[in-house]
């Protein structure tokens, strides 16, 4: 009997308790003095000082009368997009969204982002943005965000592994043929492989293919973005350059599983001798505690990605904008936070620490400052002229998925590159036709 009384009392308490907490679950703003700002960004951006920690502090400093409550949500790449879409559709979008440049078309066409054209015009730092990058923020004539960083891919190699294999640690491969032969010499399966690239169902996996594609003179889509253009003789050769490495055993087939970041990490962990990636320095510091600039220089190298024999240097660019979702209830304050976080000062700290590329003219001129933080910064900057952006059309995620399938199928030997690209082309054209 006692148990039952206890149970009844417990249940009553719990009902009351849960009702109360359920009521308080949705963040409500009591008065204008309490402001909640929700930020969606890549998880790693919260793990360091710049930009968010300092930006939040600065915003609070500018508004001492407001009691800010910041909700920070860190995500993986694909997750961030999915969560943004579901949250927006669900009626509770964040106030600040880290928008990958490749998602711009999709988000804007679906009315998910606020038009910031007027606000950027009034922003003192807007003219400092490199014109080419400024133009890239426009979609259908309007601006929907400002850059927090851009990036390019470079070749990163593990000098220790080079030395162990009897190769000159300061001489990376220049083109596909050299890459092939050096990778073969560096391979000691299954402990280490000469070259790594991802073949998971992620956007990064097709980046490597695109880099090769542009190097040999091909392109992803036709200029009007209405048709696939990657299924060409150049495309087949570009893909074959990657698949040959797998066939030769210099790259394991396990690249189809796990995450693209596994490959990047692998270079610093002695699993892969070479790979192409962005944010090399940031990764190295994450993985090797106590890494100094000197030991970084000594153990790892950064160089342009090997180009096609008789081809041009090529790399792919990406990057993120900070945007204000259209459903945000704090647009002014959100924008103000963005101007701080994506302003030149914080961008410098952020990009230097991670190995990213800045977008402000004033920062481009600070090469020496960057070099103090990341010794290979000049190499990275040198790649900009040969960098290409992917087309930021709304259908990009789906198109990319088809090409990801193609790459994966080739790695697993299911299709030849020619076959796989043909299938992908048909699928992509179908998507674009809708």
């Amino acid at each position, binding site marked *: *009997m006692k*148990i*039952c009384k206890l*149970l*009844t009392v417990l*249940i009553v308490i*719990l*009902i009351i*308790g*849960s*009702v109360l*907490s*359920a009521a308080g*679950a*949705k963040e409500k703003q009591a008065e204008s003095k309490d402001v909640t700002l*929700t930020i969606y960004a890549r*998880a790693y951006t*919260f*793990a360091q000082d710049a930009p968010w920690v300092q930006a939040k502090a600065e915003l609070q400093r500018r508004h001492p009368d407001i009691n800010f409550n910041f*909700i920070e*949500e*860190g*995500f*993986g790449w694909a*997750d961030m997009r999915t*969560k943004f879409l*579901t*949250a927006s*559709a*669900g*009626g*509770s979008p964040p106030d600040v969204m880290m928008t990958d440049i490749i998602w711009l078309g999709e988000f804007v066409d679906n009315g998910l982002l606020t038009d910031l054209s007027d606000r950027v015009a009034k922003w003192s730092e807007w003219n400092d943005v490199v014109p080419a990058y400024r133009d890239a923020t426009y979609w259908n004539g309007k601006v929907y965000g400002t850059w927090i960083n851009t990036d390019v891919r470079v070749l990163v190699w593990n000098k220790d592994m080079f030395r162990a294999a009897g190769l000159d640690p300061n001489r990376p491969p220049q083109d596909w043929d050299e890459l092939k032969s050096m990778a073969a010499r560096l391979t000691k399966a299954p402990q280490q492989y000469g070259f790594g690239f991802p073949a998971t169902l992620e956007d990064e996996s097709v980046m490597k293919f695109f880099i090769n594609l542009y190097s040999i003179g091909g392109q992803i889509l036709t200029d009007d973005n209405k048709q696939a253009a990657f299924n060409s003789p150049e495309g087949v050769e570009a893909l074959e350059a990657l698949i040959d490495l797998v066939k030769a055993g210099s790259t394991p087939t396990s690249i189809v599983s*796990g*995450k693209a*970041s*596994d490959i*990047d*990490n692998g270079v610093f*962990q002695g699993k892969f001798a070479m790979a192409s990636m962005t944010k090399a320095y940031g990764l190295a510091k994450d*993985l090797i505690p106590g890494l100094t600039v000197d030991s970084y220089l000594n153990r790892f190298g950064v160089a342009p990605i090997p180009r096609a024999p008789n081809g041009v240097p090529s790399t792919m660019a990406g990057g993120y904008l900070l945007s204000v979702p259209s459903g945000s209830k704090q647009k002014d304050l959100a924008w103000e936070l963005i101007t701080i976080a994506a302003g030149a000062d914080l961008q410098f700290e952020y990009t230097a620490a991670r190995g990213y590329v800045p977008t402000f003219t004033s920062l481009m001129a600070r090469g020496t400052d960057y070099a103090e933080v990341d010794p290979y910064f000049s190499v990275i900057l040198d790649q900009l002229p040969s960098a290409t952006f992917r087309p930021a059309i709304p259908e990009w995620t789906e198109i990319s998925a088809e090409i990801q399938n193609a790459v994966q199928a080739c790695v697993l030997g299911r299709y030849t590159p020619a076959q796989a690209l043909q299938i992908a082309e048909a699928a992509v054209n179908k998507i674009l036709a809708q």
Partner: protein
Amino acid sequence: MNTTRHRLVQVVTYTLVIIWVVFTITPLYWLLSSTFKPTLEAIGYPPTLVPKNPTLGNFKLLFTAARFNFKSYGTSMVISLGAMCINLTVATSAGYGLSRIKFKGKNIVMTTILLFQMVPVLATLIPLYQTFSRLGLYNTRLGLMLIYATQTAPMNTWLLKGYFDTIPYAIEEAAQIDGLSRIQTLFRIAMPIAAPGLSASAIFAFFRAWNEYMIAMTMTSTVRPYTVELYRFIGEQGDVDWSLLGTAAFVAILPIFVLFSFFQKYFIIGMSGGAIKS
């Protein structure tokens, strides 16, 4: 001869059972033992059976690490308890009504309710998501509570009805003569007798909500139950920190372990829909 054969049969039987039990324990043991290993040992090679340098440091790390949001356990607890309360209220009411009150169409109602236990939540996910968005229930604890409460409602109704059925009418009539209303009868007489059923339903509803992750993942963004937090954790990192992950899993399993060791009986009652009562 007979006894040696019998002895052999015994040995073989025990061995087979023990093999299965070992198979059952191993994966869990592996993950959870990394709770007590320092990170380097946990992700090191070769993997160790018994922690070489046992440490409690991982718990502290779990609590403070920025990568893992410790509040998520609290969120899960609130949601699970809330779901449990709603579920119990609803199932008790329905179970009692179906058991004690004679009304037209009673059997059809019972069968229909039971039939709904079979509806896969997976198939209702998309419309639920759409409806929740429209009603503002997306990313709320209440929304999750309601879905979880619905999941085990038919089964628990059936279970409780079974228990209420065992109450002899004489007691009820006596109560009615004494002037108690239906509701009072329910609380003072019927529920105490059905206490095992209530406990089983409560535990079952709680643990289904506590463990759930697909709905939690879909219907929330900032409200984060621990299951979503765990998934985020393995999804995000390239190289997983197994010791931290193991610790997080360990803490997550703790309430279930506790409930289970004391109330194992009720789990089985719930699982078998009342078929096994001991």
